């Protein structure tokens, strides 16, 4: 398979690619979310001990996974931006931060509404919950730092350093349920052990996780398009972008 990877390195040639992928992944996300909701809310059986409250798992687990994973991807793009001084890498990191923050907020929110009926509390200063809250603050810190620095290239470097330093928090979240014995239970899904739940429950989680992946790719690529237009203004090639403007946005 021949792919000219250099095409992906420059914002001008990446812009139309991002548009096509964003549309495709958005459509895929809608299909997967529809299927996942049917499996999660109708087909999967009611849990013997938690009743129907457990159905929050189908959004809580994907949101929590995405919150951690998006941070690692943001840190990776930041490292590329620092190491190679590539504009598009920094723009990708910039586009990932808001969606990561929303995923972290959703993980905390859905967790609270799951914790109340099953643990008896919306919130506790449990190791995993606290470290996830710190993850949300790290995302907000990266976003705030960027808006505080006028010059985009300086903001790129400052945000990249913060993103990389904050990455140490992700393994802390991931292993928190093993390192500290506080409220949050251990993982229910493992690559090395048989699943501790009904197959339809597992299928629902995996489909919803795939949907969350596709949604994240779609929305981040759409945001990176906006960032490209915002930041490359003044570059001559931008005039050709007017032609690429989506229908209905005139």
């Amino acid at each position, binding site marked *: 398979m021949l792919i000219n990877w250099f095409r992906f390195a420059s914002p001008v040639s990446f812009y139309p690619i991002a548009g096509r992928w964003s549309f495709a992944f958005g459509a895929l996300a809608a299909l997967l979310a529809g299927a996942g909701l049917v499996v999660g809310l*109708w087909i999967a059986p009611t849990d013997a001990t938690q009743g*129907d*409250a457990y*159905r929050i798992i189908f*959004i809580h687990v994907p949101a929590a996974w995405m919150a951690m994973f998006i941070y690692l991807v943001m840190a990776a793009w930041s490292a590329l931006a620092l190491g190679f001084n590539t504009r598009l890498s920094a723009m990708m990191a910039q586009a990932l931060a808001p969606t990561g923050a929303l995923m972290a907020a959703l993980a905390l929110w859905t967790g609270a509404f799951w914790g109340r*009926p099953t643990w008896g509390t919306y919130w506790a200063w449990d190791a995993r919950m606290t470290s996830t809250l710190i993850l949300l603050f790290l995302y907000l810190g990266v976003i705030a730092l960027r808006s505080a620095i006028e010059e985009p290239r300086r903001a790129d470097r400052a945000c990249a350093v913060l993103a990389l330093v904050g990455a140490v928090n992700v393994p802390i979240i991931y292993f928190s349920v093993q390192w500290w014995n506080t409220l949050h239970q251990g993982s229910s899904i493992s690559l090395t052990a048989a699943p501790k739940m009904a197959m339809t429950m597992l299928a629902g989680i995996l489909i919803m996780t795939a949907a969350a992946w596709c949604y994240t790719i779609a929305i981040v690529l759409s945001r990176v398009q906006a960032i490209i*237009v915002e930041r490359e203004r003044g570059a001559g090639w931008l005039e050709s972008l007017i032609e690429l403007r989506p229908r209905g*946005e005139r």
Partner: protein
Amino acid sequence: MAEFFAMGGYAWYVWMAYGAVALVIAVESVTVRARRKRAFDELRMSLEPPRPPSMPHARSAQ
């Protein structure tokens, strides 16, 4: 159908969680589209030729 929405007595918790996810997806999709539209509007404004001096309060290209 009413039984489905009752979620076995956990309707408040389940629908508050799912509702928040739906709201976030809707708001994020709308704001990203609006941001892209705004970026294009500003781009087009910056590409327009400067206004003639007879319009002193015309917005200048930045």
